[in-house]
């Protein structure tokens, strides 16, 4: 536990000094607030921007930050410093994962508050979106573990990020795309949280999130077994 907290604290201090990561964390919450307050289109669906950017946030932020932090520590050798100081690989990943989760939770809380949801809906919104964050984080960890350097990790993470964060939005314009998107956890979450605004939540959409969770856990297990943390 001491190790997890030490890693968490380290990551907090380091993130404050790292504009690239900071942007990942704050970009979408700020975008949502700005768009909701500035743009007003007549027949726009309720909470249109909130839902759209939330989904992008989930598909992008935890995935990119996790992959980027882990691979950078590998590349710079700081991970070796930690491991040779007796940090267990899972404590390390838990420390980083917990930090990203906490920041995303804070971001999503701000989003949900300014979205004007009821208390019950807010709780559902957070439950759906935070489960998506967990899936993204594990996927990011798998990518970070499998790549030797930050740039090569980003090379892999960015296509995943593009698919998961943009597919739900693009599928609104194309029926065929919607079928494919059905396999993306972010699409499931998209449907779940857009349902919130109309009181028509189709809980079936959560299945894909659960399935994705098991898929990324498996993926992580495979990459971890093959590469270890170094």
């Amino acid at each position, binding site marked *: 536990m*001491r*190790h997890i*907290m*030490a890693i968490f*604290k*380290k990551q907090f*201090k*380091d993130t404050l*000094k*790292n504009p690239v990561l900071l942007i990942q964390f704050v970009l979408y919450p700020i975008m949502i607030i700005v768009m909701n307050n500035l743009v007003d289109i007549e027949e726009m669906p309720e909470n249109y921007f909130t839902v759209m950017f939330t989904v992008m946030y989930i598909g992008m932020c935890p995935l990119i930050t996790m992959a980027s932090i882990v691979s950078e*520590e590998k590349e*710079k*050798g*700081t*991970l*070796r*410093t*930690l491991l*040779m*100081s*007796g*940090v*267990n690989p899972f404590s390390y990943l838990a420390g980083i994962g917990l930090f990203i989760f906490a920041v995303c939770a804070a971001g999503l809380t701000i989003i949900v508050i300014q979205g004007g949801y009821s208390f019950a809906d807010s709780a559902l919104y957070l439950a759906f979106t935070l489960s998506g964050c967990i899936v993204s984080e594990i996927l990011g960890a798998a990518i970070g573990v499998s790549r030797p350097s930050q740039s090569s990790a980003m090379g892999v993470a960015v296509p995943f990020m593009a698919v998961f964060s943009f597919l739900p939005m693009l599928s609104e314009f194309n029926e065929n795309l919607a079928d494919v998107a059905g396999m993306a956890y972010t699409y499931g979450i998209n449907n779940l949280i857009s349902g919130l605004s109309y009181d028509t939540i189709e809980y079936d959409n959560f299945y894909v999130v659960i399935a994705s969770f098991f898929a990324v856990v498996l993926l992580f297990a495979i990459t971890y077994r093959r590469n270890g943390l170094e």
Partner: protein
Amino acid sequence: MGIIQASEVCKSFGEKEVLKGVSFDIAPGEIYGLLGPSGSGKTTLIKILTGQLKADGGKTELLGIESGRIGNENRAKIGIMMDEFGIYERLSVYNNLCVMADLFGIDKSKIDETLKEVGLYEARKTPAGKLSKGMKSRLRLSRPLLQNPEIMFLDEPTSGLDPATADEIHEVLLKKRKAGCTIFLTTHNMNEAEKMCDRIALLSHGRIIEEGIPAEICRKYDTLKKLNIVLADGSAKSLPANASSADELARLLREGKICTVHSSEPNLETVFTELTGNKLGV
């Protein structure tokens, strides 16, 4: 029983045999220096000893535990400084040590103390990435110092430092040894080895070709056993270093003709160069 032990350690990288049966036994509280030409396998040996790399053959033990089985609970007792151990470049010098203090549950007041020891106190707010090469190396050194371990592995602890700073580091290390810490260090600096190490080993072509107390090694290779004298008029003279030269030496002394006298005993650098057939890199 030694606190650091190696017996018949072998390691190859592909075709290249780097270590071909290296053995030693280091007692608690000793400063043991490993010398060897660049690429001779010093860093590789440290990695094997500390369990970062698996040897192809042989056995190594730290604190009586096989290197490959050192558990996380024993890591606090083993401090390591090497270039491969990265520093957090965006974090300040102080915060870099904070990470270590948090991990080991060390009191934060120790951080400033350690920073003063390595001469980084003034730079404690500087982001580590902005430090000079020598300062970065001191920051790497400060981590095992802060940790206050039973064994320290220091891979070229003073490379790239000016002589005065290197001296300060030497003082710190000697203080640590006095407190009971065992230090295993590698160096390219022969003066450092002579001054600091209780024992040294010369690693060359995968084997330890000489091991012992620095001064004794130098005496052992004093094949000439001569006194080299420079006279006041600038001419040089060489006399056998035994009783037969006593009269002549006394005469020269009485006549005040002697400018300098040196024994022919080689310094460590000469011994090293002769034994390895290799000038040391810096």
